[in-house]
């Protein structure tokens, strides 16, 4: 089951969260810039009251303070975190810190330059707004308006004083009808060409008379109560108020019965400023007011700009820091996850998969890592499967080896395996027994010939050589070893072991104890010899006995032909005795066959010497010698070997009935031995005679002694060679003699 490191440890920030943070920050920045834009728009519209509002400034200060604190906290947190992570050896902390502070420094310098430049520009710009010419211009404009309105106010005040005097003279405060008061006021209006005349008696609504060219009085505002009270206290007042788009200047003056008396009423005179003029004056005054307000807020304006730019700078720095952290995380998180993955992999968790959504080179790296992990998983599975298979196979091999060892230990045949250098690799119990080797002796790795007596060692060495040279064919040899004071006869077969390419890997030797068999065979052979010898001796004895009895009978009868009978009888007895003597001589010769005296001999010469005996003897027999020109000289007893060839040639000529062809071929065998073959085209040898062919006194001939081939076998064996008989092609028999290279 694949692991998810993000869910497991929560170290790497999920990308969804990061994207949300990025979107939020972008939105926040957008809002800040939009707010800044509208703030600047407001600033250009000179609505400074809004900008210089304390709440706004406080809000800006608060935002800036929060941003500074957040920025400092963020940086400090990052620094502390980096220090802690560095101490813990977490990968990427150093890189993250460097990236964040590099970006911050990279942006801090230009941001501060821009910030200070902007501040300087603002200072100069704001100072330029409020220069002397502008002051003088607005002041002059306002003075015009002030002068105009001042004159109007003065004129109104003067008329109010005059109207108040006239009304006091007419004792207008006395009780009289309303129409009378209106008439009096109307007369004064007309007399002084006033726009409005009013009389406030204090207890009723003021009596008001308005000039016809002045708009109706429907919207005439009440005079503030404090001014009326002021007037009744004896102090004149002037008040101005909007009136139908124009400006109405109302001047109040107390009406006293005497100069020091209390005010009994208030005379009010109005001067109406027409709409166009009033609007123009109001516009000038408003401009002057705005300008003066701005001038008083000059410091605040600078402060606002500074705070706005500080806010922008801080937002930029904050964003840069945040982006730096984001970028660093985008790089370090996959690396941390990869590192975690490598630790998981090294701990053996090959099912671990790194799940990082990275689209760049890191994504390729992560993908390669996951692919590598999957391949490792597959490889491990394969190795485990192979390991299981190998374990099973090994177990099977061990069982098979034990079985073979048991089998080998159970068989009575000795089995020894050697490597290509003749060193023992395995040996079974029977072999140890046959070779009289100690069971506990460490034989493995030692050369087999060195473990045997010298003559046996040489024979084994030769046999191994034959086996290695024999291209898979077995080399068999009988060995007579004197081991432990006993002489034993072993049949040793060596077979080379070869690899698939045919290279020699070693050899396996099979040793069979033939001592008892040979002894039994010898006993049987000698029994046969004795039987045949008795038979051969008995054959002449019968004629001798018959001849002697015939002579004795004739002598007793005193037969006339006694002389003839004696002559014939003695002749027969002498002949048979001669036969007996010949028989005994041959046997003696076989029995006394001397040990060979090997010398370096040319086999061609031996063949030639043998063939010379037959020159002109058998006219109808063709003897063809074929000798390998590269045939080396051979160590053998030339006289005995010549006798072997003569015996074989005699047999061949006799078998062919004195007519036919004989081939003598000598060549080097691929195994290294010398091969000598004598082939004829006679009737051949029956299969049932082949096993007994080399036994003494076995003969298929009527006049044979049966010792010829036995002597041949004896001589060849004495030369450590082998002889066998095969069918010749197309007819006849072929005697094959193999002489080992050691003897050659």
């Amino acid at each position, binding site marked *: 089951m694949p692991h998810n490191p993000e869910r497991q440890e929560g170290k790497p920030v999920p990308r969804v969260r990061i994207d949300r943070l990025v979107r939020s920050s972008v939105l926040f920045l957008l809002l800040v810039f939009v707010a800044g834009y509208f703030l600047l728009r407001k600033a250009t519209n000179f609505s400074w009251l809004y900008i210089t509002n304390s709440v706004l400034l406080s809000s800006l200060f608060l935002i800036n303070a929060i941003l500074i604190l957040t920025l400092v906290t963020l940086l400090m947190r990052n620094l502390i975190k980096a220090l802690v992570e560095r101490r813990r050896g977490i990968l990427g902390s150093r890189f993250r810190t460097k990236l964040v502070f590099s970006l911050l420094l990279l942006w801090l310098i230009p941001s501060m330059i821009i910030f200070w430049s902007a501040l300087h520009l603002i200072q100069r710009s704001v100072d330029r707004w409020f220069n002397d010419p502008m002051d003088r211009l607005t002041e002059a404009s306002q003075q015009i308006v002030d002068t105009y309105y001042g004159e109007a106010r003065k004129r109104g005040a003067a008329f109010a004083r005059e109207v108040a005097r006239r009304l006091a003279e007419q004792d207008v405060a006395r009780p009289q009808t309303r129409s009378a008061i209106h008439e009096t006021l109307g007369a004064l209006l007309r007399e002084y060409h006033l726009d409005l005349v009013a009389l406030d008696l204090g207890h009723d609504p003021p009596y008001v008379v308005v000039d016809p060219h002045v708009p109706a009085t429907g919207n005439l505002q009440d005079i503030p109560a404090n001014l009326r009270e002021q007037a009744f206290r004896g102090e004149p007042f*002037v008040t101005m108020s909007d009136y139908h788009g124009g400006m109405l200047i109302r001047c109040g003056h107390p009406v006293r019965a005497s100069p020091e008396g209390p005010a009994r009423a208030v005379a009010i005179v109005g001067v109406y400023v027409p709409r166009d003029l009033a609007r123009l004056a109001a516009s000038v005054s408003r401009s002057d007011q705005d300008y003066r307000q701005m001038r008083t807020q000059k410091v605040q304006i600078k402060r606002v700009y500074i705070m706005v730019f500080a806010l922008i700078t801080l937002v930029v720095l904050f964003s840069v820091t945040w982006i730096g952290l984001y970028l660093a995380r985008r790089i370090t998180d996959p690396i941390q996850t990869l590192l975690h993955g490598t630790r998981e992999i090294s701990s053996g968790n090959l099912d671990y998969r790194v799940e990082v959504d990275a689209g760049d080179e890191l994504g390729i790296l992560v993908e390669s890592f996951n692919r590598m992990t999957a391949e490792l998983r597959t490889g491990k599975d394969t190795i485990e499967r192979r390991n299981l298979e190998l374990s099973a196979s090994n177990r099977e091999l061990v069982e098979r080896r034990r079985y073979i060892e048991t089998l080998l230990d159970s068989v009575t045949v000795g089995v020894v395996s050697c490597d290509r250098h003749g060193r023992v690799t395995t040996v079974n119990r029977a072999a140890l027994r046959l070779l009289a080797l100690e069971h506990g002796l460490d034989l493995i790795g030692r050369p087999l010939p060195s473990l045997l007596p010298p003559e046996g060692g040489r024979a084994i060495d030769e046999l191994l050589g034959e086996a290695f040279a024999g291209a898979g064919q077995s080399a068999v040899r009988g060995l007579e070893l004197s081991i432990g004071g006993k002489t034993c006869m072993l049949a040793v077969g060596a077979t080379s072991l070869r690899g698939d390419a045919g290279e020699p890997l070693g050899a396996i030797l099979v040793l069979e104890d033939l001592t008892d068999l040979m002894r039994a065979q010898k006993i049987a052979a000698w029994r046969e010899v004795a039987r045949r010898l008795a038979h051969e001796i008995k054959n002449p004895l019968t004629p001798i006995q018959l001849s002697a009895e015939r002579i004795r009978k004739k002598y007793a009868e005193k037969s006339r032909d006694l002389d003839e009978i004696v002559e014939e009888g003695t002749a027969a007895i002498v002949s048979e005795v001669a036969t007996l003597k010949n028989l005994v001589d041959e046997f003696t010769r076989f029995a006394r066959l001397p040990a060979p005296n090997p010398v370096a001999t040319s086999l061609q010469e031996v063949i030639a010497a043998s063939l010379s005996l037959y020159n002109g003897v058998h006219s109808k027999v063709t003897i063809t010698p074929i000798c390998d020109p590269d045939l080396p000289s051979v160590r053998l007893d030339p006289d005995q070997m010549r006798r072997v060839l003569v015996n074989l040639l005699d047999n061949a000529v006799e078998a062919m009935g004195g007519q036919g062809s004989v081939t003598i071929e000598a060549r080097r065998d691929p195994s290294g031995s010398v091969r000598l073959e004598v082939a004829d085209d006679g009737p051949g040898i029956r299969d049932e005679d082949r096993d007994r062919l080399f036994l003494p006194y076995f003969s298929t001939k009527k006049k044979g002694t049966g010792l010829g081939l036995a002597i041949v076998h004896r001589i060849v064996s004495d030369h450590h060679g082998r002889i066998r008989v095969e069918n010749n092609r197309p007819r006849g028999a072929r005697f094959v003699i193999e002489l080992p290279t050691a003897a050659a």
Partner: protein
Amino acid sequence: MKAGPGLLTICLITGLSAAPALGSPAITHLAAERNGDTFEASCRLEGALTPDVEEEIAAGLSTSIEYRLNLYRKRTAFFDQVVVKHRIECTTRYDTLTKQYTLTRRLDGELQETRVTDDPAAMRGFMTELHGVPLVRAEELQPGEEYYLKAKSNLGLLWRFYLIPWPRDTDWERVDLALTGGKGVATQP
């Protein structure tokens, strides 16, 4: 170098805490008088109308001064009980065309008085003097208890270190309430 941040912090705190004293506005002549069956408060605000403020007013900016009057009943072993809390806001707006000050006074948000004057002295008096502000009816006070009046004024913001807004308030001024009909007057600052 190590003492740098600490020193900076001390200077900042000292500078900020000393900020109110630099403007020196203060409530004076705080008094709580019994007028008939009602206790009324009066006070003056000194140092509020600085030249800068005067200039702002003359430029037509609406300027306000807020007074806070709190009447407490003393309690032992516990926080004093607030009997009455009043917030008086005095506002002036100068019309450069008519050369008149429009003065308004609100008590706890309700308009109490509107005046128009062209006299700067009258405007100053209106903004910095309170007279006859009703606090509480005498019958609402418990005999034998001790009461006192605290007053302060909020004058908006001033700026420390050019960029740090700081409330430009006066300290709380206190005067005991004389239930016997006498006049309680705060000590002069």
